[in-house]
Structure formats: structure tokens, C-alpha cells
């Protein structure tokens, strides 16, 4: 993956597939630590699945037996001296409080750090594909933060769907303008 925003797009698909209705994407950047955390309230994974989930030969896909989403994200973190951790609660064991948290920590000053890239595009595509999910995005930096919460947008939009082209275009620009204001 050429951009971390592509990894985020990819990992969030797992949360969608897990049936989450709320997905939080939190980026925290301070000094030489850059953290990406994706939290969902989907069905979660059982312990033995979580243990093997960074193995490319563990996958939920049915078209072939190799899944590279998590291993690629892990590689992107580890090649900067960082790491990837996953914690999950499966709905069968935690009926009230299930879901998955994927956390990747990077050193953004490392020469092998992958740039974040076009996060606005990742967010609009996630919202376009799953407008019924409650998406929460925050990127905190030392000099300010960028955020988006689709529930707030829905409150303004009323009957107009989130995946209307004009709304998606507005979301993309809203994110970009927040970044350029930092």
C-alpha cells in the first residue's frame, strides 16, 4: 500500500463486514509517535482467531485462502520500528460489549514511514459504501485537530442521504479544509 489511508480503507472494510454500526477512526500524532486506531462494535473475533489474525493464511475471505490486509498494515507499522496490536471481544462471549480495536503505532520520522495520503478520499468512499454506519473520524496533532462525525451531519441533512454526491463532495472538502487550516 502506498498510503496509510489505503490501509485504513482496507481495515475498515473488516469492521463493516463484522456488522458494526459504529466505526471510529482515530489518528493521534505527537512528536515521533503516530498512532492509528480503528474501533468497531461489530461481531468481534474469538481469542484463537485474534492470535492468528496477523498470519496471512488466516482470513475470512472465501475466494482464496490468503488475507493480506492486517499483515500489510502490521508491516507498515513494524518497518518504522512500531507495532500493531489487536484486541477483540466476540459477541458469543460478550453479548453486550463486543467489537474489535486495531491499533498501529508508527514512527513518522523513520525513513520507511508510509505517508497518510488522501484520507479525505478514504472517508468519502467509506461513507459512500456504508452510509448507514455511524462514522467518527479524528486526527489530533500537536497544533490542532481534524474531525468528522456522520451523526452530526445527519442531524443537519434530515432526509437527504449521506451518500448523495453533493454531500460526499462537501465531506471531502470539509476534511481537506480542516487539514489546510492546521
Amino acid at each position, binding site marked *: 500500500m502506498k498510503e496509510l489511508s489505503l490501509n485504513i480503507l482496507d481495515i475498515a472494510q473488516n469492521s463493516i463486514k463484522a456488522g458494526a454500526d459504529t466505526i471510529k477512526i482515530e489518528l493521534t500524532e505527537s512528536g515521533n509517535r503516530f498512532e492509528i486506531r480503528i474501533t468497531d462494535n461489530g461481531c468481534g473475533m474469538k481469542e484463537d482467531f485474534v492470535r492468528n489474525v496477523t498470519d496471512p493464511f488466516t482470513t475470512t475471505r472465501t475466494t482464496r485462502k490468503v488475507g493480506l490486509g492486517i499483515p500489510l498494515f502490521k508491516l507498515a507499522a513494524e518497518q518504522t520500528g512500531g507495532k500493531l496490536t489487536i484486541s477483540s471481544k466476540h459477541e458469543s462471549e460478550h453479548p453486550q460489549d463486543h467489537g474489535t480495536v486495531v491499533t498501529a503505532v508508527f514512527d513518522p520520522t523513520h525513513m520507511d514511514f508510509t505517508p497518510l495520503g488522501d484520507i479525505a478520499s478514504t472517508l468519502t468512499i467509506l461513507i459512500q*459504501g456504508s452510509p448507514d454506519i455511524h462514522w467518527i473520524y479524528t486526527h489530533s496533532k500537536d497544533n490542532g485537530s481534524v474531525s468528522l462525525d456522520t451523526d452530526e451531519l445527519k442531524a443537519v441533512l434530515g432526509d437527504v442521504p449521506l451518500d448523495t454526491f453533493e454531500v460526499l463532495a462537501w465531506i471531502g472538502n470539509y476534511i481537506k479544509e480542516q487539514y489546510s487550516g492546521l
Partner: protein
Amino acid sequence: MKSLAELAAIREKMQGKVVLREGSGDIRVVVGMATCGIAAGARPVLNAFVEEINNRDLAGKVTVSQTGCIGICQFEPVVEVFEADKEKVTYVKMTPDKAKEVIEKHIIGGKVIEEYTVSNI
């Protein structure tokens, strides 16, 4: 700076059109967005479809959706076009430019671009 007030203005503008958009979808464009598709460049391809469909005012007729791995990862980005009463068309190794061409020649013109389809590989 973009503000929520601006979003409210979009709401005012769009409200009349919403009804028109429902019950749409004579043609369905499906973009593969699994790891393989994303790594191969599916994100800009999907964006190109969404933009071009809006530019050409096709939103009432064409819907764009996302799917997982279609199973031919080496040919990603893969795009499938479903049309009522017609056979599914699978386009492979897509780019944003090819996406615009598919909109123009296939979606609007009704003619499949054979050279971009999986059967041509």
C-alpha cells in the same frame, strides 16, 4: 471554511431531488474494494465513477456500490456492470480514465468496451 450551514444549504437544494433518486438503479456498477483492489488502485477508480455519474447527471439511473474480493486479484481493479436483462460485464485492470470511458461508451452509449473486459485477457 466549510461549515455545517453550508451543508444545510445542500439539504435545501437536494430535498426536492431525493424522491427522484429513489427507485433508481437500472444499472449497477460494482467496484471490488478488498485488499487486492485497494492496493491495485480501486479508490481512484471508484471516485471516478462517482464523479462522472454526477457530472453526466446519471444518478437516477446508475448506482455505484462496493464489494469484496471477486477472486481475480491479479486483474484488479475489477469493476462489474450489472444491467437488467443483460449479462454481467466484468472490466479488469481499471483506471480512472477507463472508468470515464466506460461511462461514456457503455453506460451512456450502450456498447461494451470489449478490450477492457476479463474475456479479452
